[in-house]
């Protein structure tokens, strides 16, 4: 009794007792909870990584099994032999057919030509798959020759029974029409599979695409500081060491056709704009022409002024011709492209940011310092994805570099633009 009172007294003394813990406790709890949730995230991540690894392992395993299940060269020989070597004549005309088979040790995998057993009848009715393979071995009693029958597609009953075909000694071997037919079907199917395999990679033959691109542009100006006229044309400051860079935009259409399983020939037309800002220290009273620059006396027209910014905007119509190589030709495709583009110069517009100077546009022509026809090398990669039966979307990072200066030879300067751009294209596949 006293004991209970003692315990009750203690319990009562502590009833409603409270002690405030330090503030650090909650902070530590928060930290622990944060760590715990981080750990959970890591565990989830690990789980996804394991899943990904398992998927890859499964994919490889599946691919391996698929590869192993493909008919081997031996199978092909067997099929070929099956179709061509199975005698179709009556055994009465060739009574020693079984002996022939027996003696031919180089051809161990011949198809049995005995009248079908009960199971074989079943095969001919039920199986819609090829039957000749090395998956099951049947031995002939009299010849010791091993025959093979593929059990794929057979019913469970046939699967579970071990098929033993006994050929009576010296009995006439009669070709079975059903087996021959199945062997032929096997051949046909193999041919069909081969064609399918080839067709899978080359289903898309001809397509057209529209796209637009943007990227960086480097004019690569090389000029003499003495030639103010040229500098005025290009807007270049004075030395070749100053190499401004700008932007490039393009829009165009392309048509492509497969010329082989992996190679593609493609061409098209696109409109290019290449912009760059220069600093100029000369001013022109108007549009400069090649004839003016050919005569040093005309340099007087160009006055030295304080540096000002000039925007050069060059327009071209480009006709690219490229050869592509398909590295990956599936739903996701990777293609390497290389080729040449014929760039037809349209105009160059120099827009000074100073209101004191006029905007100048240099068009193509005899008097233009620019070549009308230019050639550029093209190099790029194309990553595409089939979004529907007839449509693909692609991303094309590529390099375009001028094979020569876009100035005419008479001009004592060179501009060999290099452009790196990425274009987005929508492809329509005709067939």
């Amino acid at each position: 009794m006293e004991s209970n009172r003692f315990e009750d007294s203690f319990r009562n003394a502590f009833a409603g007792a409270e002690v405030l813990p330090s503030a650090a406790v909650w902070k530590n709890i928060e930290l622990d909870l944060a760590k715990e949730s981080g750990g959970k995230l890591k565990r989830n991540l690990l789980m996804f990584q394991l899943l990904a690894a398992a998927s890859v392992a499964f994919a490889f395993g599946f691919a391996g099994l698929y590869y192993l299940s493909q008919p081997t060269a031996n199978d092909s020989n067997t099929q070929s032999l099956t179709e061509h070597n199975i005698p179709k004549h009556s055994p009465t005309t060739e009574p020693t057919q079984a002996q022939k088979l027996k003696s031919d040790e180089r051809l161990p995998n011949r198809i049995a030509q005995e009248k079908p057993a009960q199971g074989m009848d079943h095969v001919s009715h039920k199986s819609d798959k090829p039957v000749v393979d090395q998956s099951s071995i049947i031995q002939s009693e009299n010849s010791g020759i091993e025959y093979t029958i593929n059990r794929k597609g057979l019913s469970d009953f046939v699967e579970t029974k071990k098929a033993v075909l006994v050929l009576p000694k010296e009995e006439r071997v009669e070709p079975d029409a059903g087996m021959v037919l199945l062997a032929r079907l096997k051949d046909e199917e193999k041919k069909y599979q081969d064609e399918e395999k080839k067709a899978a990679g080359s289903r898309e033959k001809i397509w057209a695409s529209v796209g637009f691109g943007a990227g960086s542009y480097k004019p690569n100006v090389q000029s003499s500081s003495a030639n103010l006229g040229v500098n005025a044309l290009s807007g270049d400051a004075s030395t070749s060491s100053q190499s401004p860079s700008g932007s490039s935009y393009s829009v165009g259409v392309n048509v492509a056709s497969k010329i082989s399983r992996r190679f593609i020939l493609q061409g098209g037309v696109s409109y290019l704009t290449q912009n760059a800002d220069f600093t100029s220290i000369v001013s022109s009273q108007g549009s400069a022409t090649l004839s003016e620059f050919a005569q040093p006396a005309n340099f007087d027209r160009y006055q030295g002024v304080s540096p000002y910014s000039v925007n050069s905007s060059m327009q071209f119509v480009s006709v690219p011709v490229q050869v592509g190589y398909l590295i990956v030709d599936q739903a996701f495709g990777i293609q390497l492209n290389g080729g040449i583009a014929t760039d037809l110069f349209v105009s160059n517009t120099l827009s000074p940011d100073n209101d004191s100077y006029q905007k100048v546009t240099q068009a193509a022509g005899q008097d233009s310092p620019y070549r009308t026809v230019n050639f550029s090398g093209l190099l790029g990669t194309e990553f595409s994805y089939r979004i529907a039966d007839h449509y693909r979307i692609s991303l094309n990072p590529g390099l375009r570099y001028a094979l020569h200066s876009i100035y005419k030879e008479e001009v004592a300067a060179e501009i060999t633009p290099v452009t790196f751009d990425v274009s987005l294209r929508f492809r329509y596949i005709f067939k």
Partner: protein
Amino acid sequence: MHNDRINLGMLTEQELIEACRKGNRASQEALYDRFCKKLMVVCLRYSKSSAEAEDILQEGFVKVFQGLGGFRQDSKLETWMTRIMVNTALNHHRKKLYLYPMVDVDNIDLPETEVSLSGLHFTQLLEMIQELPPGCQVVFNMFAMEGYGHKEIAEMLGISEGTSKSQYARARNLLQEKLLKGSTYYQRYGK
């Protein structure tokens, strides 16, 4: 922010549980605020110092938040949380219990005199409990304060029922002696 805390403080226990289950940190803090002081006392009873008690409280609360999803509300939330604190404390002390093996004490002379706790502040009693040997402290808390039977205590601590009884008897004896002679608190503050 302050208003949010006030609003969370006004939530019912059930609402608070639901919010904590969703991992809402503010709700977890509100739940902590609501129960930490009472549970700190539980932890102090099983500890030798405030720092040790805070370690247990921290670990226990993390377990509370982790296990709240599985709380079936068969018992009151406070009872469930107290049980978690006790279990955490027991885990905390398990090694110490091995370090201080509990031996059976066959003959314990319990004082016949009745000891009154009236007028004693719980902190004085707390200090007395904390001064008990580890084994006695744990068994006393489990038997006298939590209400476990000796059989349960024996199972939970992996000792014999007799050891639990003898440890409790010893604890009680020591406490009664302290109460009679007066603890440091008793001496300091008087009745």
